[in-house]
């Protein structure tokens, strides 16, 4: 009698069989129809931050000037602006890949290849920063940013090159903010001394090229 009871106990009923089959089927179907993202991040956001903080990946004006006047097979310009803007004017030998098309299949090879370094530019410096960060996070390392962006380069390098042209620094404080505040407040200077002496209200023009150009990204 015990034997029979045990057999019933350990038997697998039809209901269970159906249930488990449905369960497994749901999982398999889910796997088949799961939306698969096309792109994957290759580096974490922490690694990206470390990369940003190390300040490489920017091509300074000296190199740009060189490249504009004697093209080098190791570099190519990528213009991230829209097609009409590109047509209005662009750096020589640029490839136009508007920002919202950088994932297009036809350009994948450009990001992937390692023979030529891509120099990204947008109308301003910050505009190229985002795409550069995305490409970096996807693991495409062979990209750099043109310091200053197209408008800056066009104004200061192509139209009239001057020794100051390399001084583009978006993140450099142009003014001593606290000094301005205290001066316009009509009282004594409350800003910490020392720094306040160096720079005035007027934009600093005496900036020199300080070694490597830094502009972030």
């Amino acid at each position, binding site marked *: 009698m015990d034997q029979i009871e045990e057999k*019933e*106990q*350990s*038997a*697998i*009923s039809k*209901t*269970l069989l159906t*249930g*488990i089959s449905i*369960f497994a089927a749901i999982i398999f179907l889910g796997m088949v129809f799961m939306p698969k993202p096309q792109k994957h991040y290759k580096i974490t956001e922490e690694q990206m931050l470390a990369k940003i903080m190390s300040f490489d990946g920017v091509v300074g004006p000296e190199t740009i000037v060189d490249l504009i006047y004697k093209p080098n097979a190791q570099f190519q310009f990528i213009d991230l602006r829209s097609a009409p803007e590109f047509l209005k004017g662009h750096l020589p030998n640029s490839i136009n890949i508007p920002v919202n098309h950088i994932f297009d299949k036809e350009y994948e090879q450009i990001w992937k290849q390692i023979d030529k370094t891509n120099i990204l530019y947008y109308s301003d410096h910050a505009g190229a920063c985002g795409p550069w960060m995305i490409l970096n996070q996807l693991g495409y390392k062979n990209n750099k940013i043109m310091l200053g962006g197209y408008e800056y380069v066009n104004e200061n390098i192509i139209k009239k090159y001057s020794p100051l042209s390399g001084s583009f620094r978006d993140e450099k404080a142009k003014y001593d903010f606290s000094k301005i505040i205290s001066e316009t407040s009509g009282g004594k200077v409350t800003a910490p001394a020392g720094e306040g002496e160096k720079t005035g209200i007027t934009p600093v023009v005496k900036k020199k090229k300080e070694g490597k150009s830094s502009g972030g990204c």
Partner: protein
Amino acid sequence: MEKIQEPKKYMNPYLAGFLLGLTMIAAFYFSGRGLGASGAIKSTVTAVVSAVAPAHADKSEFYASYKGEGSSPMNSWLVYEMLGFIFGALISGIIAGRIKKDIVKPPKITSRTRLIMAGLGGVAAGIGATLGRGCTSGAGLTGMSNLSLAGFISFMAMFGGAFMFSFFLRKFWINKA
């Protein structure tokens, strides 16, 4: 014809386990937590103690940790779950015709001894469940389902401990023919 009077057979254990697993997944899916039982007891004890002796309950670190901020300790997920649990067990008992005032005991043992043992076991399990942060369902079942370390440790400790002590209690539960 006497078979009709007999209570229904128990569910196939694999089927029951499978359904229990689905219930667990539902709990994860809706509330992000597994099943449990002893948490409700802790909440109830805390509620009773803070109702009877509020000053005493405030002093104790233990009661403070179970007392919700502002709300009653009874207003917790596990308390509602255990209310449902009792209700569900009652429904099942009615359907299967198993509702009966009864004491489950080995034949040779008197009811009195069995009840004393049950009470003592309850005390031990109560202390253990509080110390171990969960009982068989809360720590063991749920803990193993989400593959937490605590779940595996608790499971091994519970079943290992019970197996260990079962040797000493064999005279109580088992009568060799």
